[in-house]
């Protein structure tokens, strides 16, 4: 039965849409917004050798992205984002001819992409591997065939078409982890490790028959990390680091050969690395390196007679790579030095001599951490000089490309693809304004001194104004040139920018220019300029590790003090875990200058306890600093900064905290009890939400900085229905399945102080991913309805009723009567990855919900669509209130997509912040990509629109004045003439 949409309802909704949906004009696109695209932490990287040498860099990343990056300027050529999570996990990548072959073992697919255009060449299904087992790819038969080891099977595919030639299931996969496959002549080697007992190898012929299958004992092998496979050999390092065990996999040799490396005077060696480059040196025998106690880098080769030979010993090498250049095999190394510098050197392995033309000092700042991988190409220029392009992949996920002159060609900060927390901090006021404020704050009442101060301040203002004018003229010319050269996410020259930044980083008139502080999962903190997304400052703390809460990684960022309290400096801090001790770590820094705090140890304050909960108080101390109260796992309170402990003691009677044990489904609330040893937490309330297979997946409180403008809504009969505004309300969602494929989830509205369950409901046959928006007196959440196979959005709104219980104060301990919960649900035509509500300074502007969708668009949906009072049969009263009639499907107009055709994918969160203008809300969507925009939910009502026709109105006014003067004169002359007649 086909249903056509009724045209009247359609027209009505279109009419409302035209009012409610405020699209951009084409010339506004790009004025206030910017988008950055990232790829994530690179795991495999290869320079594309086809065509011009080293023109394209092919990368596969931890974020399941395959991309081609232009090697000259770092721009993205093409990018393919594979499935999220395990099914898109990239296990291995090989570049052959013009194609990139990618193995997604979790999803059981091998995909071949064309390296220049990015179009798919073929896709072949292979057995899938679970998360703990990684697959492997290898080329066979002179690049004709592809060997795929995945899911406990070995598959051979035709590398041009992807057609399967044969596939065989491996045996003994319960005990042995098969991780390596290689080609040896016409044979195929598959090898695996069984930790603690033996190593297995299987050799297949070209047709797939088992030629040889054997295992050799390796009782000394405790874990897989000790071993590396390379070129048909298995090389392992003993646990004490003194013996190297190696075995050939391609022959009948059935045991390991143990070679002691302590004979070379090397002790406590670790970090065995193999080099995969195809070298002709030593007939292609494997070369590996170990790092030993004196931080020395030792390069070994296994010769044909199975003897180890020490090729080279180097001191203080951070990372190395072997590159084949014509007939020379070069070892390229990079070593960090103090003061943001590093040295790159090249050694000819055959002669053992250093190639002086390749050694160069490069600029390698400390905030990159340690270089992890090097990839490079060497080539000859026309004039015979050797050229080099070296890519450095560092601990902070960044990619830097160096040239032979040591110059940085480009830098990609890929840590921004894994942002955990974001805050937008106001910029400081200019010096002049600060001086003016200082003037008012001063207590000195002496008339003369005040006069003198006023005079000097104003004189300085005039001076500053003239200087500003001159600088602005210079800056216009400079920036114009600058913007033509540089691109958004790639930086070329950092030094030139810094001079302009200091004057540039002051608050503008409407407080629209902010500093975006972004904390990423690797412990790197960025300060981004909100106008164009450029990185202003960076801080790196390699010991900072995120918490895991509700199945996600969380690294909370707190703003202790903003820039509003001159001369006190603003302060932010990050609470995380220490990488090694797994206890709390608090890292404090200045959000505008990006400098870590002075009296803090280098990697942050180490809190010697685990962390259960932390909260920033809304009270400010005498220095306008908000203290952070941390509840440790042994139920003790700690206050940072320590000096504010007395302030918190005074607040103790009204300080309540709660924590959740997600797997056990327990929510507990604590109050604060002052004891001799300090403040201690006592369990006051507890909820037991545990159901079979359910775990808590969302705990969403309200935003502390949100202002609710009206306490109730006006109904059609002019009476008021008061909202239930409970600032302590928390939305808790517990989801899970009952083991038979039927998922369900429960929504609980809990008062965080008293533990009262205000409301709870249950959705059967529905599953996540669930996103929650909790604001004012309503909750919006979305989920996937398994029965009807569609995305649904539900809204719960809470009202007290016709009478307000308490007009002055809200106390959870003396609660109002239970509210009326109005609810409604709709279907949504798209898949949602994140949601957030807009927020403005006073709360007058209507609320819009920003929905980030899987198809790359961010939709701005008016809250009026999500109103549980939308009637199915509209009456006169409901029309008067402005309620849209109920349509079970939510619209998805393209004009409401704030990022128009700048699609952003895999968005994990949207952060909204109020600006100085009541009509404007600043939005940053982060995930794999970044998108920043200004949103005006009720249109820009407080500032003249930007296409305001100054010229037209001015000219009309001037024209009318002239005409009226003229006609006055003419009329006077005429009257005079008539009088004379």
């Amino acid at each position, binding site marked *: 039965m086909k249903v056509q949409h009724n045209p009247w309802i359609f027209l009505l909704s279109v009419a409302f849409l035209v009012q409610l949906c405020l699209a951009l004009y084409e010339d506004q696109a790009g004025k206030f917004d910017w988008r950055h695209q990232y790829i994530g932490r690179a795991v495999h990287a290869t320079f594309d050798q086809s065509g011009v040498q080293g023109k394209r860099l092919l990368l596969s990343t931890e974020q399941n992205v395959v991309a081609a990056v232009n090697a000259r300027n770092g721009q993205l050529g093409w990018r393919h984002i594979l*499935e999220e999570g395990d099914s898109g996990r990239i296990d291995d990548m090989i570049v052959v001819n013009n194609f990139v072959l990618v193995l997604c073992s979790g999803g059981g697919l091998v995909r071949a992409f064309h390296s220049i255009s990015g179009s798919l060449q073929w896709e072949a*299904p292979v057995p899938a591997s679970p998360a703990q087992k990684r697959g492997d790819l290898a080329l066979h038969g002179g690049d004709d065939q592809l060997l795929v080891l995945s899911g406990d099977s070995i598959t051979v595919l035709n590398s041009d078409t992807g057609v399967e030639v044969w596939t065989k299931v491996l045996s003994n996969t319960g005990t042995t982890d098969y991780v390596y496959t290689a080609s040896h002549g016409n044979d195929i080697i598959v090898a695996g490790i069984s930790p603690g007992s033996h190593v297995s190898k299987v050799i297949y012929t070209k047709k797939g028959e088992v030629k040889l299958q054997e295992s050799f004992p390796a009782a000394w092998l405790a874990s897989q990390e000790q071993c590396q496979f390379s070129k048909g050999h298995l090389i392992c390092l003993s646990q004490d680091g003194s013996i190297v065990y190696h075995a050939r996999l391609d022959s009948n040799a059935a045991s390991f050969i143990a070679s002691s490396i302590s004979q070379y005077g090397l002790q406590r060696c670790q970090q065995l690395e193999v080099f995969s480059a195809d070298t002709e040196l030593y007939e292609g025998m494997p070369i590996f390196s170990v790092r030993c106690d004196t931080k020395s880098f030792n390069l070994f080769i296994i010769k044909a007679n199975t003897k180890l030979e020490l090729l080279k010993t180097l001191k203080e090498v951070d990372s190395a790579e072997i590159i084949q250049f014509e007939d020379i095999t070069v070892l390229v190394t990079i070593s960090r030095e103090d003061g943001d510098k590093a040295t790159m050197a090249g050694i000819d392995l055959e002669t053992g001599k250093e190639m002086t033309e390749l050694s160069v000092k490069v600029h390698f700042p400390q905030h990159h951490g340690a270089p992890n991988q090097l990839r490079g190409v060497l080539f000859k220029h026309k004039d015979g000089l050797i050229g080099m392009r070296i890519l450095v992949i560092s601990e902070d996920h960044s990619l830097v490309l160096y040239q032979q002159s040591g110059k940085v060609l480009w830098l990609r900060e890929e840590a921004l693809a894994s942002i955990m927390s974001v805050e937008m901090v106001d910029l400081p006021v200019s010096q002049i304004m600060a001086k003016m404020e200082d003037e008012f704050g001063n207590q000195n009442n002496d008339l003369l001194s005040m006069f003198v101060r006023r005079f000097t301040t104003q004189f300085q203002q005039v001076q500053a104004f003239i200087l500003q004018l001159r600088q602005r003229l210079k800056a216009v010319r400079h920036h114009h040139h600058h913007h033509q050269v540089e691109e958004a996410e790639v930086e070329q020259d950092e030094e030139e920018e810094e001079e302009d930044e200091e004057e540039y980083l002051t608050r503008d008139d409407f407080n629209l220019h902010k500093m975006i502080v972004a904390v990423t999962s690797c412990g790197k903190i960025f300060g981004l300029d909100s106008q164009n997304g450029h990185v202003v400052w960076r801080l790196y703390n390699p010991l900072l590790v995120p918490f895991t809460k509700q199945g996600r990684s969380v690294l909370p960022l707190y703003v202790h003090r903003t820039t509003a309290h001159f001369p006190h400096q603003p302060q932010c801090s990050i609470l995380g875990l220490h990488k090694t001790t797994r206890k709390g770590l608090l890292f404090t820094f200045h959000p505008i200058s990006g400098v870590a705090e002075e009296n803090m140890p280098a990697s942050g304050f180490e809190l010697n306890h685990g962390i259960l909960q932390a909260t920033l108080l809304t009270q400010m101390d005498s220095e306008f600093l908000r203290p952070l109260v941390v509840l440790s796992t042994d139920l003790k309170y700690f206050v940072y900064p320590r000096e504010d402990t007395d302030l918190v003691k005074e607040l103790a009677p009204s300080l309540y905290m709660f924590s959740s044990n997600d797997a056990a489904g327990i929510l507990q609330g604590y109050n604060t009890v002052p004891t001799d040893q300090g403040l201690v937490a006592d369990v006051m309330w507890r909820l037991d939400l545990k159901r079979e297979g359910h775990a808590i997946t969302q705990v969403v409180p309200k935003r502390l900085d949100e202002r609710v403008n009206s306490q109730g809504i006006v109904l059609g009969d002019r009476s008021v229905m008061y909202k239930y505004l409970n600032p302590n309300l928390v939305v808790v969602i517990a989801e899970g399945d009952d083991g038979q494929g039927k998922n369900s989830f429960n929504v609980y509205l809990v008062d965080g102080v008293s533990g009262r369950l205000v409301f709870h409901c249950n959705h059967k046959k529905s599953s996540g991913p669930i996103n929650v928006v909790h604001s004012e007196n309503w909750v919006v959440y979305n989920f996937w309805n398994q029965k009807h196979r569609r995305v649904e959005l539900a809204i719960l709104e809470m009202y007290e009723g016709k009478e307000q219980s308490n007009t002055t104060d809200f106390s959870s301990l003396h609660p109002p009567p239970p509210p009326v919960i109005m609810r409604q649900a709709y279907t949504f035509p798209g898949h949602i990855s994140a949601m957030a509500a807009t927020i403005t300074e006073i709360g007058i502007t209507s609320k819009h919900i920003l929905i980030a969708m899987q198809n790359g668009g961010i939709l701005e949906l008016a809250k009026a669509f999500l109103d549980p009072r939308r009637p199915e049969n509209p009456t006169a009263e409901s029309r008067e209130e402005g309620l849209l009639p109920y349509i079970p499907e939510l619209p998805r107009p393209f004009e409401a997509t704030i990022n128009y*055709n700048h699609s952003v994918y895999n968005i994990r969160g949207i952060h909204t912040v109020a600006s100085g203008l009541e009509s404007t809300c600043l939005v940053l969507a982060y995930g794999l990509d970044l998108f920043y925009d200004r949103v005006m939910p009720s249109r820009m009502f407080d500032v003249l629109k930007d296409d305001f026709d100054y010229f*037209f109105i001015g000219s009309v006014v001037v024209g009318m004045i002239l005409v009226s003067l003229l006609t006055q004169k003419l009329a006077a002359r005429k009257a005079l003439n008539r009088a004379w007649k």
Partner: protein
Amino acid sequence: MHLNKMTPDFLILSLIFALLRGIGANPEEEGNDKSLFKIEGKVLAPQSADQDWISSTKILVDGGANIGFLKSDGTFVINNVPSGSYIVEVVNPTFVFEPYRVDITSKGKTRGRKLNNLQPSAVQTVTYPLKFKSRGKAEYFQRREEWRISDLLFNPMVMMMIVPCLMFLVLPKLMNTADPETQKEMQQSMNMFTNPKQNMPDISETLTSWLGGNPAAGNAGRKAAKPRPLKKK
């Protein structure tokens, strides 16, 4: 003999029992079989597309549970899809494509149908392998209101002001005002406007004439007689 008689009854009853059990079991539950199938289709190149539309397009199954990429001719195959019902949509930043729903039975039979969220069980089949045709470019922007001179001229207020002004200025030039006859005509037309009383009795007279009948002729004659005495002055 009795046994022989009993067993058919027994069989029938057991059959009924077995059937009841079978109906009780839920037919829509996905089976335990792990066989995987494919979804195939083609995306037709949109009209104003440039060359890299293929690398910026991808096919999402159920919002990203499986992702398909396009080959250079626009076809796609999505592997490793278990049996069930899926939403297949084409994602491209510039062009709009309508999503379809694909049902795969546990035997591997695939069919495509239109996506109807309000009535998920409504079936309107589409061709399978799926063919995606673009509905055009996505309209992301509003048109700016442009100011045209015609907006000003056709504004009713402006017309009411300017047109009588023009008439006032232009008409006297057209008609020769020096001519006394035209002047008198103008005066009389002015009188008509300023002296409405002359018209009122006419209306009432015409009305009574219609309703009354004969006196109408007399009235009309009297009407014609009236202005003459005035004129003789």
